[in-house]
């Protein structure tokens, strides 16, 4: 029975590519038409994915869709298939949401740049390719989508080619991205050589039959695929280009990068490790992923402490947060996957929001260097509030969303540490990373938004409403997912985790019932994850408390008003009484900002920071050495232990 919703996964992808095509043809001259076309495509895709998400996640169906209706013949997949289970739908939702909000934001933000038609073409191509990547059920199709994605990413990174380093970042991204694609393609070719199929479900069944342990071809393919998707998710030895690209791209694109491009890498890793090769049951593979994740966490955050460019700092935080996600999904437990997926979603929300804030600051002042900012809170009050929400979210302060997912991740890691002492260490690193995240956002807050205002910012105004709207939407989503964790886990996360955990159901739905049993000899059983506990965290109670105390304070403040002086200077020129205290001197402009704010911390880690700066040398060859070296290490490690 074909429901009309079952066509939507393919259509949602195509409408974006169609939009890209139409913008190129018709959008060259007419600004309004181009924006209309792009937004229509993004909206249509978003609505379709919402329908799909309801059909798949809430109603519990799995959509299989064979392009051209080429269904499998004699149990062999001959066409390209789309399979949308809750995991795909979850990621598709993130992708289209990001696209849609970024589209709204771009209207004003990109209005000052030339070449808007190219921008919207690339923007739609990027969104379409990532959406295709997360919806497809064919591994070679996945590779093609990765290539389109890399291509669009490079072009968008180098889009503002007049700005400092955009071209350079684009080139570095291209080199490392192509290396990643090559790895992925070689891995796919090896898998094909072994199993003679490209369909992910069928591959999974075949590999389960052959078994990966001791089969060095499979292990090589696995290592290549991990490297390929690792490069796309910018885990640590591959993260150098991410920092450059995020910094150089326009903010609306940086949001796409952190919101969906590296999520695509995470999705790929989940697919490869949990479904296709089914290696997550093996302790050694878990160790590998957790190690990569932990190093990403710590290196990302310490590099972020070192930065003085707003967007570069955020880029390093992306790496750090992806480290959390990788650690969580590397644990191989249901709670770990749940935490990882929750954190992936939260990262999309708060990091996208932070990039939009950086973009708003850039739009208003034309600067991203934190050393040259200050006092924007008075000029841009809404942006400041939004930024604080996002910063507290990413630092994991309750009751915002970062706290919930980080907590699930800690619980998962700590529960695992009953087996091995190493995981205890990972728990400590994760908790310290969270504090350091708070520290570096304090730095941004102090440098950009608070502190004394600069005279050259006197005529800075708040950004227009069409930029604030997507920011507020994301801010509200940040608070909502933090306040109602039970609701979100039940409705969104648990189905996705179940999908990750039930490999055989995935195979059977695609290839026809009974297929798994025929190939592997084990019956298809749906494994449903145990009740994912989110501990005893009831944010609603906390909010009740908060409300009561706030009311009490307000009452005291209102009734005590008559007995208390209260002066607030709103005049342009401050009198002595309301001027900042400077030890008696006239108030002059003097701010404490910039990369050296946490001197007491950096001083003790001088050697570490110097070494880290040396590693991020900016030479593309060094980055290639790191990536290829990591590939070699993965191959050797996996060959040695599997």
């Amino acid at each position, binding site marked *: 029975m074909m429901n009309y919703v079952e066509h939507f996964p393919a259509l949602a992808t195509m409408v974006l590519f169609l939009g890209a095509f139409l913008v190129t043809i018709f959008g060259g001259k007419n600004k309004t038409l181009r924006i209309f076309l792009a937004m229509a495509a993004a909206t249509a895709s978003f609505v379709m994915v919402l329908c799909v998400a309801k059909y798949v996640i809430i109603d519990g169906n799995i959509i299989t869709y064979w392009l051209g209706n080429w269904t499998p013949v004699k149990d062999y997949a001959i066409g390209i298939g789309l399979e949308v289970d809750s995991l795909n739908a979850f990621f598709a939702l993130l992708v289209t949401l990001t696209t849609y909000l970024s589209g709204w934001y771009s209207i004003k933000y990109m209005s000052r740049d030339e070449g808007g038609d190219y921008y919207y073409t690339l923007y739609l191509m990027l969104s379409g390719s990532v959406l295709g990547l997360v919806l497809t059920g064919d591994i070679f199709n996945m590779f093609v989508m990765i290539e389109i994605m890399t291509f669009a990413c490079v072009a968008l990174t180098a889009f503002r080619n007049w700005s400092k380093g955009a071209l350079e970042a684009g080139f570095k991204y291209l080199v490392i991205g192509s290396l990643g694609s090559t790895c992925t393609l070689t891995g796919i070719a090896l898998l094909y050589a072994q199993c003679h199929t490209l369909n992910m479900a069928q591959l999974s069944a075949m590999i389960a039959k052959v078994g990966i342990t001791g089969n060095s071809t499979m292990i090589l393919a696995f290592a290549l695929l991990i490297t390929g998707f690792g490069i796309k998710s910018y885990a640590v030895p591959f993260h150098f280009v991410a920092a450059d690209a995020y910094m150089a791209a326009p903010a609306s694109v940086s949001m796409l990068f952190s919101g969906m491009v590296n999520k695509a890498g995470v999705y790929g890793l989940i697919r490869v490790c949990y479904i296709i090769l089914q290696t997550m049951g093996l302790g050694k593979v878990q160790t590998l992923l957790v190690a990569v994740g932990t190093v990403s966490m710590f290196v990302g955050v310490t590099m972020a402490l070192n930065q003085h460019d707003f967007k570069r700092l955020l880029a390093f935080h992306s790496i750090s947060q992806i480290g959390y996600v990788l650690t969580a999904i590397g644990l191989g437990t249901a709670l770990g996957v749940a935490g990882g997926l929750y954190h992936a979603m939260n990262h999309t929300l708060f990091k996208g929001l932070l990039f939009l804030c950086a973009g708003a600051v850039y739009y208003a002042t034309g600067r991203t260097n934190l050393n040259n900012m200050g006092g924007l809170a008075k000029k841009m009050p809404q942006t400041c509030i939004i930024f604080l929400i996002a910063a507290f979210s990413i630092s994991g302060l309750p009751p915002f969303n970062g706290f919930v997912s980080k907590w699930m991740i800690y619980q998962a890691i700590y529960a695992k540490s009953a087996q091995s002492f190493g995981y205890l260490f990972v728990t400590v690193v994760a908790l310290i990373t969270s504090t350091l995240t708070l520290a570096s956002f304090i730095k941004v807050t102090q440098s950009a938004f608070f502190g004394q205002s600069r005279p050259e910012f006197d005529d800075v105004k708040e950004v227009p409403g069409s930029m604030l709207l997507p920011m507020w939407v994301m801010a509200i989503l940040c608070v909502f997912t933090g306040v109602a964790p039970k609701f979100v886990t039940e409705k969104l996360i648990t189905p996705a985790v179940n999908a990750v955990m039930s490999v055989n159901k995935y195979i059977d739905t695609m290839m026809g019932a009974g297929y798994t049993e025929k190939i592997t000899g084990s019956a298809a059983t749906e494994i449903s994850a145990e009740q994912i506990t989110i501990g005893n965290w009831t944010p609603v109670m906390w909010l009740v408390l908060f409300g009561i105390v706030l009311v009490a304070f307000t009452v005291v403040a209102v009734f*005590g008003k*008559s*007995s208390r002086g209260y*002066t607030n200077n709103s005049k342009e020129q401050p009198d002595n009484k309301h001027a900042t*205290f400077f030890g008696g001197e006239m108030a002059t402009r003097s701010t404490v900002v910039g990369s050296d704010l946490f001197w007491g911390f950096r001083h003790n880690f001088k050697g570490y920071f110097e070494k880290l700066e040396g590693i991020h040398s900016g030479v593309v060859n060094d980055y290639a050495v790191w990536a290829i070296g990591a590939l070699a290490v993965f191959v050797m490690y996996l060959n040695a232990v599997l």
Partner: protein
Amino acid sequence: MFDNLINKSAAKSPWLFHINAGSCNGCDIELVAVLTPRYDAERLGFRLAGTPRHADIVVVTGPLTAQIKDRVLRTIEQVPEPRCIVTMGSCPASGNVFKDGYTYAGPLSKYVDVDVDIAGCAAKPETVLEGLYQAAMILEQKRKDMKNKGGQI
């Protein structure tokens, strides 16, 4: 009820901010002596504050030189109401031996309303303690006046 409590507390917890307006350091060490265990001003609630925003009583020592005059006045202005201004030693009140010097810009009472003058060169700790105690009483009165004026300053 709370207002009575607040008025009483105003006298029981006066925080000092000390400004050296060109003093010879004699009065400064006497002020520190008041806070040391022998005289222990903290038993009356006195405490040195680090910034004028926290202070209730501003203690000025020294003759108020021309260079520092503006700074002293600016700092005094930054102290929130109700506040007391106490001059310590002879210099800020009369100029003492610096009176006819070319750098002398005092006395302090020329510019602001001084509440308590503590005499002596240098002032004895006992005197200082007595003066500060009187300042605390004045603080309570000022707080009452402020209340009667409906919080208007």
